[in-house]
């Protein structure tokens, strides 16, 4: 686009030919009122509020839909422009109720702001106003459609960004209503963004309803930590409580959108199950005590059980993947100073010998410009919503996307979907690699000699070879595949051959932070699963909830509950399971209550401050670990704030993992494989306590999907339960496997 000069209100400004006038005025900081225009959505020019006067054009023009051209002279403030804007405002206010005092949008309402500037204080309209009956569109969004001004931002958000058109305009003229068609209401995993884009009080946050006025709250920027994106957010607080979360802008990370999970998880902070005071177990009875008593008890217990007898190798440290990078770092430093190498955050993996090692070497923004993506083993839309959003943008721009999953998941963009049983994934990938090597006339390694490339392998190999830029995305459903490590190696190999990128979404939350902080055992230490089997004397746990976090849930609980095993458990929430095995409970600050950093898929280290103070006696985990280290008389823990830890961490070199250089595929499993995934709104402890999310359709997900033949083999029918989860027999599933998506604990499930 050519550079041109235009004149706005007598001021010469530079612009690109063809860009819209409103984009120029926004860039130049010239205020033009608008309702329907949104920089990330298509132009509808329906509200007419942005009318301006352009010299030589008889009628005022909408600046959101007028492309600029060289020499254009625009007046945004002259009589003609002002008169048009005023007239539009008067029309918009005809049907809009003047109920600002009881409207949740009051104080942060675009209509209110513009009305103050352009509106008249007296209405000439004496007829009846239009009223629209209230409707319930789900637990997250409160509607009051009488206030709707038909800007259609929510409708366009649904069809253009969320990829599912749920809202629409029905009726005509004064009967036009913005509403969802389906009785189930709004179900998108990004639905909360409709609240942010709504310029009036028609769509507001339901959990936040009637809570506070926007000006009463302090808005603090923070980072959401439920997935690999680390979306930028603003946490809005009042009297030490997070009251609402809204999206922040960061083009490189989340643009301007956030997932519902990031938006509504704060509700869990005030849950009654929060652990609020240190507790110790004395002769089987829990007792609330002061911090120094609890810490002293913990230190004495650790000394007695392991340290005094030089048995640090019988101590184990386990942490949840939601910890901050600083917490991971401090905990591994503490354990290693004690001479303990047994530490792990990879709790949900069946066989850590087969742990996935795969690089993520493409940035979120770059995902948009790929022309081919192969997604393996991921229901990306629910598991990593913002990564899915970037791929969707790539697809809309013309990229082809293939998905290889056990189930035909509902992606919100066009995919070539193949359902493949977990047992066959490695063979499929080996087949792809073989095709590629053959086409590139490269000698085949031994392990590919007996692989036969099926039709699907050929097709996917062709697509990868023909793509200018490709990415292979490996998801969480693969972590417990019997051949997981081999699959990851094949993916790396294939990507190398086609000069494509890889994206490892087989882990989530702050798993990259854990790796960065070396929170993985070296060869002399035990991994999570080994610890469960070994003769341990003590455990230090950081926000671990074994009934959900562990793949081997009941073995974990058993190992922790063993007699004479001393368990120091640092937790943000309490429950009966923890109470049974722990000896000391130390209450920790949850998300939003602690400072630290999160590492996202771009490898951006995004740091955040504590937004609110932890309730009652709860303390940030880094402080607990620091004091614990001091009391254990370990050197080098003189930190005053988490930034000092980050500083030290920055100079730390990351251990290279022993990569198996020779690729050897493990034998494939022959039994029916079960993939257990927590539903998207139950993937970490804060989410599990967020009330409104749990009530939403995604939060209610609890099904065990299987094909008819698998069901027959398992002697199950519709209405039965599989591992405690209702059976869903569907033709969308590959044979020989079950896909569980559940909001329940893994307890009693997989072993």
């Amino acid at each position: 686009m050519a550079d041109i000069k235009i004149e706005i209100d007598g001021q010469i400004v530079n612009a690109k030919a063809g860009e819209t006038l409103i984009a120029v005025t926004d860039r130049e900081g010239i205020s033009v009122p608008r309702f329907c225009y949104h920089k990330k959505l298509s132009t509808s020019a329906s509200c007419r509020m942005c009318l301006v006067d352009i010299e030589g054009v008889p009628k005022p023009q909408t600046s959101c839909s007028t492309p600029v051209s060289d020499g254009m002279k625009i007046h945004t403030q002259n009589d003609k422009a002002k008169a048009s804007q005023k007239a539009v405002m008067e029309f918009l206010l005809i049907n809009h109720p003047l109920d600002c005092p009881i409207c949740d949008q009051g104080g942060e309402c675009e209509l209110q702001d513009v009305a103050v500037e352009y509106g008249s204080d007296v209405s000439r309209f004496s007829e009846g106003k239009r009223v629209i009956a209230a409707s319930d569109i789900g637990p997250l969004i409160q509607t009051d459609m009488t206030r709707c001004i038909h800007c259609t931002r929510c409708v366009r958000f649904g069809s253009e960004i969320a990829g599912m058109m749920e809202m629409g305009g029905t009726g005509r003229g004064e009967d036009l209503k913005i509403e969802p068609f389906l009785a189930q209401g709004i179900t998108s995993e990004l639905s909360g963004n409709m609240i942010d884009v709504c310029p009036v009080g028609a769509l507001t946050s339901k959990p936040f309803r009637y809570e506070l006025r926007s000006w009463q709250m302090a808005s603090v920027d923070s980072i959401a930590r439920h997935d690999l994106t680390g979306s930028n957010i603003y946490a809005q607080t009042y009297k030490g409580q997070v009251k609402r979360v809204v999206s922040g802008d960061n083009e490189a990370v989340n643009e301007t959108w956030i997932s519902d999970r990031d938006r509504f998880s704060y509700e869990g902070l005030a849950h009654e199950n929060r652990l609020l005071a240190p507790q110790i177990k004395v002769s089987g009875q829990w007792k609330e005590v002061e911090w120094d008593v609890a810490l002293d008890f913990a230190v004495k217990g650790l000394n007695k059980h392991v340290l005094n007898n030089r048995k640090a190798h019988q101590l184990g440290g386990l942490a949840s993947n939601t910890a901050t990078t600083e917490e991971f770092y401090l905990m591994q430093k503490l354990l290693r100073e004690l001479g303990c190498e047994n530490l792990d955050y990879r709790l949900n993996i069946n066989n850590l010998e087969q742990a996935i090692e795969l690089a993520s070497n493409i940035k979120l923004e770059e995902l948009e410009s790929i022309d081919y993506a192969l997604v393996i083993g991921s229901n990306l839309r629910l598991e990593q919503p913002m990564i899915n959003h970037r791929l969707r943008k790539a697809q809309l721009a013309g990229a082809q996307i293939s998905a290889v999953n056990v189930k035909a998941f509902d992606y919100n963009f066009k995919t070539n979907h193949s359902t493949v049983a977990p047992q066959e994934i490695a063979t499929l990938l080996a087949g792809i690699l073989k095709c590629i090597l053959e086409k590139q006339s490269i000698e085949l390694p031994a392990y590919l000699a007996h692989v036969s490339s099926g039709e699907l392998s050929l097709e996917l190999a062709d697509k990868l070879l023909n793509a200018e830029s490709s990415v292979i995305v490996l998801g969480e459903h693969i972590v417990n595949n019997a051949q997981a490590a081999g699959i990851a190696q094949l993916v790396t190999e294939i990507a190398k051959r086609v000069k494509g990128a890889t994206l490892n979404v087989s882990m989530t939350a702050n798993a990259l932070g854990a790796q960065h902080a070396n929170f993985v055992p070296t060869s002399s230490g035990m991994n999570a699963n080994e610890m469960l089997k070994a003769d341990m004397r003590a455990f230090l746990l950081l926000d671990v909830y074994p009934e959900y976090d562990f793949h081997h849930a009941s073995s974990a609980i058993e190992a922790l509950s063993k007699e004479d095993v001393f368990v120091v458990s640092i937790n943000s929430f309490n429950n009966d399971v923890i109470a049974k095995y722990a000896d000391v409970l130390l209450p920790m600050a949850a998300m939003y209550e602690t400072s630290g950093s999160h590492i996202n898929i771009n490898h951006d280290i995004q740091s955040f401050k504590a937004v609110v103070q932890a309730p009652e006696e709860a303390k940030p985990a880094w402080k607990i670990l620091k004091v614990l280290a001091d009391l254990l008389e370990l050197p080098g823990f003189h930190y005053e704030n988490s930034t000092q830890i980050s500083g030290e961490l920055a100079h730390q070199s990351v251990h290279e993992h022993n990569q198996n250089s020779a690729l050897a595929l493990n034998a494939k499993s022959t039994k029916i494989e079960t993939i257990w995934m927590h539903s998207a709104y139950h993937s970490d402890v804060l989410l599990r306590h967020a009330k409104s999310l749990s009530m939403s359709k995604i939060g209610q997900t609890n099904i065990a999907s299987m094909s008819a033949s698998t069901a027959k083999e398992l002697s199950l029918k519709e209405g039965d339960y599989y591992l405690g989860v209702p059976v869903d027999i569907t033709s969308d599933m590959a044979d020989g496997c079950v896909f569980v998506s559940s909001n329940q604990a893994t307890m009693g499930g997989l072993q």
Partner: protein
Amino acid sequence: MISDNAKKQIDTWIAKYPEGRQSSAVMEALKIVQAENENQLSHDTIQAVADYLNMPGIAAAEVATFYENYNHQPVGKHIIRFCHNISCMLNGSDDLIAHLETKLGVKTGEVTKDGLISVKKVECLGACVGAPMFQIGDQYYENLTTDKIDDIVDGLK
């Protein structure tokens, strides 16, 4: 939900548009399905049309609720489609609609007890020159008066 016959008819409309643009046939598809369902569309039939054309239900509902040709309530054998837009209104359509309602003993949107006639207010039918006017079937009746309306309605069987 959609009969094979209706599907066949809809397919001929889909064929008129470029591949992948089957949703362009939504207006005809709704019309065809409505004709098979006692001249009205329900939530479910709209969803069925949307599914058949691979478009969101709400997008089909937007079309079905925008145009007056689609009925969302039971209708009579004859539908009197009374224009109430500006030209007709200025020429007295409000009074004539009231007269019609009294005569038939129904409100607009309702059906007479014998199921013969229903009255519907519609947007401009492009016959302002003959305002006030209404449409029954394919026939326009213009320059209406109370007497003229009585004659027309009495003639409906």
